[in-house]
Each structure stands twice: as C-alpha cells, then as structure tokens.
C-alpha cells in the first residue's frame, strides 16, 4: 500500500496546526513495537502456530539437517567426528573430483555425463510419447473401449520400482546351463535384433543396452499415466472447433496443427518446464536396482557414484558429499531457471 503525505498528517482545525493522523499513529506504534505486536498476534493465534510445529520439525530434522551434513564436502571427513568438529578443507574434494585425473575423478566425470545423457534421453523419448498417446486416446469414441485402453496403459505405474525392475531383470536375464534366457531377450534374438550370444549373456550385463532398457522400461511404466494430463487438456477442446475446421476443409493434419496443438500448447509448455526442472533428479533407486559393475560405464549416475563411495567402502563421505553437492546445485539452478522462464512465458508459475 502506498502512503501519501495526506495519510500521515491531518489538519487540526481547533489549534490551526497539522498533526499526525490517528491511522498513522497506529502504524507508528506497530513499527515501534514490532516484536511486541508479533508476540501478541502469535499469542492470539497460538493454535495455528502449534499446528505448524510438527511439520516444521519433521522438515527441519530430516530435510535441513542433512543439508548441514552436506557441508561435510568442505571438511576433512573421517566418519568419526560430527561435521561441526571436522577440520575445514576448502574445495579440496571438489578439486580432487574434477581435476585429479585419477580413476575416482574419471569415474565422477563418467557419472556426470551419464546423468545428463540418461535424463536427456528421457526428455527426448519419454516426453513426446504421452502426448501422442493422449492424441490416440482422443480418437476412440466409445467410452468403454477408451477406459479399457487407459486402464491397461496405467497399469504398470502401480508397480513399485522394485517389482518393476525385478520383472525387467527376469525378462532379459541371462541364460545359463540350467535355465534359458529371459523371454524378451529370446524374442529379440528370434526376430534378429540382437545376436543369440549377446542375448544369452544377459542384456543387463551389457553396457550398450543399459540406456535402452532404462528408457523403454520408463516409457512402459509411465507413458500411460503421464498421458492423463494431456488427455484432460485435449478433451477440454470444444467439438465446435473441430467442426469449424472441418467445414473449412481441414484434413486431420491441419486439425492437429490448428485446433489441437494451440489448445494443449500451454499444458505442454508447463509439463516440459517441470520436466527440465527435474532433469538431474534421476531416479537413483531404479539405476541402483538395474545396474551392476559390468554396466557402470553407461549406468553409473552421480547419486549411485556417491552412494557407492559414501556408504560402502569407497572414497569416503566427504567425496560423496562433494559429488552430490555439485549435482544438486546444478539441479537447483535448472529448477529455478525453468521456473523463471515459466513465469515469464506463461502466467502460470509452478511453485
């Protein structure tokens, strides 16, 4: 609220002088005794603040305290002393990871590259497919048939990551003396897409298949479910728009281009920006469940790299924290950048 001079002063006719207006006197009082005012408001509404406490404590203990532990990346970590008592070591871990050129450093760069590649492929393949699915759903006029298709395609979303990866592991597993290979590898070998020897060695043991398996299982799991939001945007289009386009002689492509696309563009933009914002939050659980030492070349991402080094018998928590620090800071910059663009480009801001 803007306050002009007229709000500060008022003319006292009896004395013939200007004096501070009563409203301003109240404002001055609040300003002067700000914390008293805060205290009174809190006491009056104490129940609200009481309600806030459990949630704030949960977030403080298990979201913000780990961030404090993350500062261990600037300290000499020895896994014995708490972070506050460790010696300061500056950027030595970062230098070690980025510049040392030893095997740890090359592993880190590999993990960084894999993180970007996996998420970029996810964006390229995982993002358009739900839109296409939604367009297809829109073609089905019968409600019952559409529900059946939708239920079938949402289905894989309801499995946990563990069950999904177990199923994937079993479907492409290696053959051995006693058991044959998984049914999907068998199928791929039969149609000649891969050689039987490669299929028999197990696709999950082969670094050149990890990315495909990761993306295809991701599409299998999420495409149907992700199409819901696009489908909702498409069915919101009024049928009269199509009719008008048809009367004007638009064929299907033209209808897509001039009716459907403009109507769902804002949804697409919002979803794309959300997606870019979470680009680096690779589901580490899924990678962890699918990879093995043979496929580290293409499968190791920063989180799993940190996990191996910080929680097992690796290079220590300081190194791991430094790796995660870099990943998370880049991730945060992406989120904030994506949001700023969202706010500028459309009126909808995400957070």
């Amino acid at each position, binding site marked *: 609220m803007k306050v002009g001079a007229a709000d500060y002063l008022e003319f006292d006719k009896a004395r013939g002088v200007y004096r501070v207006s009563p409203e301003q006197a109240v404002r001055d009082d609040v300003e002067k005794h700000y914390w008293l005012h805060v205290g009174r408001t809190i006491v009056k509404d104490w129940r609200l603040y009481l309600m806030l406490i459990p949630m704030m404590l949960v977030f403080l203990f298990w979201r913000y305290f780990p961030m404090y532990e993350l500062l261990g990346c600037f300290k000499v970590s020895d896994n014995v002393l708490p972070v506050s008592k460790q010696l300061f070591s500056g950027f030595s871990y970062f230098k070690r990871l980025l510049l040392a050129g030893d095997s740890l450093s090359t592993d880190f760069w590999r993990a960084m590259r894999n993180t970007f590649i996996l998420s970029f492929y996810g964006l390229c393949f995982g993002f358009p497919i739900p839109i296409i699915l939604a367009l297809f759903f829109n073609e089905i006029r019968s409600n019952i048939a559409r529900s059946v298709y939708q239920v079938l395609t949402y289905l894989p979303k309801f499995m946990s990551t563990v069950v999904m990866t177990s*199923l994937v592991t079993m479907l492409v597993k290696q053959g051995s003396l006693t058991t044959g290979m998984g049914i999907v590898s068998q199928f791929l070998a039969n149609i000649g897409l891969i050689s039987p020897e490669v299929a028999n060695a197990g696709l999950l043991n082969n670094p050149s298949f990890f990315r495909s398996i990761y993306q295809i299982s991701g599409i299998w799991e999420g495409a149907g479910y992700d199409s819901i939001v696009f489908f909702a945007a498409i069915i919101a289009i009024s049928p009269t728009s199509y009719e008008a386009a048809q009367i004007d002689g638009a064929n299907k492509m033209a209808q897509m281009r001039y009716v459907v696309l403009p109507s769902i563009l804002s949804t697409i933009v919002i979803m794309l920006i959300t997606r870019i914002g979470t680009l680096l939050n690779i589901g580490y659980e899924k990678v962890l469940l699918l990879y093995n030492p043979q496929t580290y070349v293409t499968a190791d991402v920063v989180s799993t790299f940190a996990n191996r080094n910080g929680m097992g018998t690796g290079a220590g928590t300081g190194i791991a924290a430094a790796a995660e620090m870099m990943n998370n800071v880049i991730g945060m910059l992406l989120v904030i950048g994506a949001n700023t663009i969202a706010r500028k480009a459309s009126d909808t801001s995400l957070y």
Partner: protein
Amino acid sequence: MKRKLEISELIFKIISYTLLTVFALCCLYPFVYAISASISGRSAVEYGSVVLFPKDVQFEAFAKMFGDNMFWNAYSNTLFVTLYGTIWAMFTSILGAYALSKRRLLFRKFFNFFLVFTMWFSAGIVPQYLNYLDTQKVFNAIGIMDDKWLVVIAMGMAAMNIILLRNAFEGVPSEIEEAAVVDGASEFQVLSKVYIPMSKSTIATVALFFAISRWNGYFWARQMISNSNEHPLQVFIRLRLEEYTDPEAMSGWNEAFASDSVIYALIVCSIVPILIIYPFIQKYFAKGVNMGGVKE
C-alpha cells in the same frame, strides 16, 4: 449431423487403434507372462517354452512362498509401515497445511519458502544416510529399538503433497469459516468440521500418494533396517531376486518347479492387492495428476 470421415481422419483413426492396441498389449504382457511363468512346470520355464499360457500347471511355487514365514512377516511389515506412515504423514501435513493456508499467519512467506526449498534442493543420499544414522542413535537412546518406526516417522514427507493440501484449504470460502467461528467453533473444530469435510477428495488423493510411496519404499528401508524380520515386502522381494538369479547359488536347485517361478510368484503376490483396490483408487489418481500447477 453425421458426416463421412475424411480419408486422412480415417487413416489416423486406424493408426491410433493399431498403435494403442500394440502398446496396451505390451503393457499387459509382462503381467500375463509373470502369472503364467509362476504356475508353469520346471522344464517349461527353464527352456523358455512358456510364451503366453502356462504349461504343466503346478502351484508349488506359490505353496513354497506361502509356506515361508518371512514372506508373511514382510507383508505385515509393509502394512505396518504403510498404515502408520500414512497416518503420521497426514497428521503433520493436514495441520501444517491448514496453518499455512491462513492469510493471518505471520511469516507465512518464510514458512512456505521453508517447504518449497526442499523441492528445489535436496541434500542427497549420503548426507541423508548420515542423518538417519544419527536419528537411529537418538531413537535407540529414547527406547525405540524397532527400526520400522524410524522409517515411519523420519521418512516419506513430501512438500509437494502439503502444498496440494494447502491449495485445497485455500479454496474453501472464508464465509463458511466465519459462520462457524460466529457459532463458537474453535480453531480445531473449524479444521475438523469445515475444512476437512470440504476438501475430502484432495485429502484422499494426498493420502493415496503417501500410502503408495510407503508401500513402494525400498532404498531407505534396506539401508536402515538391519534386522531381516523387520524388512518390508519390497526389500524381501529384492533380496530373494538377488538370491534366486545367482546361477551358482541355484545350481543345486532340485524342486519340481523352476527357481524363476518363485520370483514370478512373488511379483504376482505383490501386485495382486494393488490390482484389487485399483478400481477404487483410480479416480483419485487421475485427479492428482491434474492438480499440478502449484502457486506460491
């Protein structure tokens, strides 16, 4: 008015139906295969002759699994974590979201930022692990020896869900609250008698999100729960998978069914309960997706 489909529209319709059918079958096939493989005979599974329908039907793989006490243990642990975890998360989230939805709350912007920041920046796995280890020490010191409670209380909070709840509470017209206050309702009565009933569907959706993430929780349960009797189902499945896909450990397998059948049976058993409740929760799920668009 019905008009004839133009040729391009017809082509697109045909393509849609074909590709959708293919995709839907691809989505369905692994489940069908899992069921068939779990009840097929040993040689049929091992030599890959099961393609769609079961062969030499046997139910011993299921029998073996149902006879395993650890399996039932794991199931009950998962139910425990899901039930109490959802209750705890909903308790803290509803109270917090209600307070945050009030414009008269002082430092509201700060509190909101406190939440939203955790969506932008997370500490990462290793710092979280160190933090959970400390938490475990504290819990043990105050007498909570069961690590399941650690999973229930310390894990699984999501800022996103709280913001969904907050937005729903903000959508409740303030006149109704004022009317309740005039009638002498206290703050807690306003919440329980006005706000919760008026945002029932959002609450159901958010509870569902929490429940699903609890049911599916694997990584931290495996890291933090050392006692194998306390393992939830997901950890149990993973450990069995690791054990049963190790060719050396399985070389001495001499049951009448394939070792793979046990894994498939496990997978089927973990999906079936979800399939049973799926029709009831599906609409909330679809609703949750479209609730996006969070504003600060």
